């Protein structure tokens, strides 16, 4: 099984790929008492990596997360445990080479729970240990492997301290805040210490969902099916946080701070642009800090493409691209190895894009948005 030979045409950056992190191994990076607590974490399986607490997200095995990695490993006779609890720099590089990805941004899987940890000291301990683990074992700018830094946003002072401690490491290209259920929403000045630290270290802010399913974390309690909750949750989270960030004037308070919203597709973007513009026209006096329309702020943000919606009438997608200035706002995201990942061909095959636009979406916009510093 060969690669896809895309590097002859495009230099691809994948802005949202997931490392299958196992928190139990982080004890080596912790001080007591968390060192003992995490080392002695009981139970074989802390959490199913597919996100479903009590029900099956893979539809009886109809989709198989990590399938491409298993295929590539089998081809090379590599026996690596890929039960959702392990990964490695080598596995990451193998998939990058196969998909012709030059640069990759590693987002955690388990540690996306950081935003939902009511135990703030747990969130602080694990996010610090995760950063140390990733920088020691995975981040490798010379091979194009960078890491986003998930921060414990529920304690902005601790998050700021983490950013100040590791934010200048060349293996860090962004900070990450989870979009599901942050209280208060991310536009509040509660988070100003985080935004101040991010901009000081020249780091953008990734806003990313955590887990979604009818049995956990869903915004709309009572939804019964995966097809219901997974359709909505990350999109609702992104829309809520984007609304708060725009309307609270974060981009006026922190000019130049870059926001990157991920993993909710792209069709919601024009909807929220025009919805917020309509409301703002009536309520300008409530938010005089805004100096332009909300949609203009939104078009200064960046959006990961995955899971991109491809309608049967491709012109509908073309219209969305036009509405959101996609050539300058979108960044290709795979979300590999999660089960709704997108192959780079979702962009390369779009008939209405110029080669220049494809290259911008596939890589150039990411090189503008992220801090990629090769060693």
């Amino acid at each position, binding site marked *: 099984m060969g690669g896809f030979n895309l590097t002859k045409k495009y230099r691809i950056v994948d802005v949202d790929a997931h490392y299958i992190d196992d928190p139990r191994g982080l004890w080596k990076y912790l001080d007591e008492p968390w060192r003992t607590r995490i080392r002695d974490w009981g139970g074989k399986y802390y959490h199913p990596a597919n996100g479903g607490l009590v029900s099956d997200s*893979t539809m*009886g095995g*109809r*989709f198989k997360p990590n*399938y491409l990695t298993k*295929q590539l490993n089998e081809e090379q006779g590599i026996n690596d445990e890929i039960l959702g609890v392990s990964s490695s720099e080598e596995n990451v590089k193998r998939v990058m080479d196969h998909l012709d990805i030059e640069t990759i941004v590693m987002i955690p899987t388990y540690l996306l729970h950081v935003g939902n940890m009511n135990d703030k000291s747990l969130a602080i301990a694990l996010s610090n240990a995760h950063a140390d683990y990733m920088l020691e074992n995975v981040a490798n700018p010379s091979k194009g492997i960078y890491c986003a830094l998930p921060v414990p946003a529920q304690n902005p002072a601790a998050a700021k301290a983490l950013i100040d401690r590791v934010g200048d490491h060349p293996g860090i290209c962004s900070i990450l805040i989870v979009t599901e259920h942050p209280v208060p929403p991310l536009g509040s000045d509660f988070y100003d210490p985080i935004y101040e630290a991010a901009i000081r270290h020249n780091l953008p802010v990734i806003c990313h969902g955590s887990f979604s399913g009818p049995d956990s974390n869903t915004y709309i309690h009572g939804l019964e099916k995966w097809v219901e909750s997974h359709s909505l949750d990350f999109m609702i989270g992104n829309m809520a946080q984007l609304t708060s960030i725009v309307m609270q004037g974060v981009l006026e308070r922190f000019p130049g701070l870059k926001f990157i919203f991920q993993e909710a597709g792209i069709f919601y973007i024009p909807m929220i642009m025009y919805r917020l513009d309509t409301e703002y026209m009536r309520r300008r006096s409530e938010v005089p800090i805004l100096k332009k329309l909300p949609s203009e702020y939104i078009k200064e943000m960046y959006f990961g493409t995955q899971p991109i919606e491809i309608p*049967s009438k491709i012109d509908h997608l073309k219209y969305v691209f036009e509405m959101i200035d996609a050539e300058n706002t979108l960044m290709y995201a795979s979300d590999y190895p999660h089960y709704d*990942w997108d*192959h780079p061909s979702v962009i390369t095959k779009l008939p209405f894009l110029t080669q220049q636009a494809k290259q911008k979406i596939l890589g150039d916009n990411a090189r503008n948005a992220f801090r990629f510093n090769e060693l």
Partner: protein
Amino acid sequence: MKQHILCASDELIAGTGRVFEIGNRSIGIFNINEKYYALRNRCPHQGGPLCESELFYRIEAEVSEGKIREFVPSEKDAIACPWHGIEFDVTTGVCLSKKEWKVATYTVFKNSDGYLVVEIPE
């Protein structure tokens, strides 16, 4: 059309499938209750290895007396692309969730010597 001998029929037991590389095509062959089906091993969604799927039951439903009745037919005749789980009818190549998608299908049969033979356009 050109015929290609694949394997002895007893090497593909009922309820299973296998992928064969024939020229520049990758073809999946499935045995459903001793009837054979051949499909192109390429998902129209994003090019995934569709025929590396196992056979699944096609879970169906109907409205009966005002309520949804779900049922499972007696034979497994669906496959699902391992990349994203999109299901296809093995017997027709038609996508179960988006009927306008259809995977190429080919004639496959057991010859008089007990070998599976597939017919592929040249």
